């Protein structure tokens, strides 16, 4: 599965380009909502292997960014977004407005990331 990656200027992969328009706003400039398809959501709970947890524990001792968990959260976020977009696409929507993220710790070293929003069909205003 090849998807277009979003890379920072330092080369780090920060996500994938979305196939569905995602926005945190309720309205999209220059377009109007023709139909509301309803709530869509996607969640993911991921963990890193025990080796990364060990490195994270050591990083916790000395301070600084815990990159192992930054990556973990990034992976969860992208997977949750993919699931949200899949739901929107199955409903026949071409955009998700009012997208929000929420997170919770399910167990030590594993985090849930839930993305939700309202699937809509947008048309040019």
């Amino acid at each position, binding site marked *: *599965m090849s*998807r277009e990656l979003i890379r920072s*200027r330092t080369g*780090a992969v920060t996500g994938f380009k979305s196939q569905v328009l995602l926005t945190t706003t309720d309205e999209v400039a220059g377009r109007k909502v023709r139909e509301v398809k309803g709530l869509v959501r996607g969640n993911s709970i991921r963990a890193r*292997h025990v080796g990364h947890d060990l490195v994270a524990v050591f990083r916790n001792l000395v301070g600084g960014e815990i990159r192992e968990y*930054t*990556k973990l959260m990034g992976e969860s976020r992208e997977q949750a977004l993919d699931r949200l977009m899949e739901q929107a696409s199955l409903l026949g929507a071409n955009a998700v407005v009012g997208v929000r993220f929420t997170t919770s710790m399910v167990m030590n070293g594993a985090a849930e990331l839930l993305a939700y929003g309202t699937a809509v069909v947008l048309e040019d205003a």
Partner: protein
Amino acid sequence: MNTELETLLVKAVDGLLTPDEQARLDAYLAEHPEVGEALEDDMAIKAITDGWAQRIQADADIEPPRPSGPARVVLGTGMVLVVGAVTALMGFALWMTLRDPAVPMLVRAAVAAGAAGAAGLLGYVVKVRLRSLGRDPYREVDR
């Protein structure tokens, strides 16, 4: 706005003007102060974006998003040694418990059942993980 002026403004924002271009731009700005104000706004925005670009680069310089070859070897070796040592110690403790005649038979049976169950569960998740290793589309994400 003419193309030459646009080019001069963009170069001014990036700090790439030659002395001759700077003189021409100064002459134009003297007659059009409103363009000068817009240029100051653009330069302020550039200063902000340069600021965060430098911070992101500095962060990447401290530790790259993907560990280098030698760093991967150090991290991998450390992880294998620690996990291997813990597994060996737990295995030894289990073996000693099962062999110890002072431990009641019921306890030994419970320990053996627990160990067998844990091994089965671990084997299952390891098998699934090994199957998905390298195929996880999200492992590319760095942050």
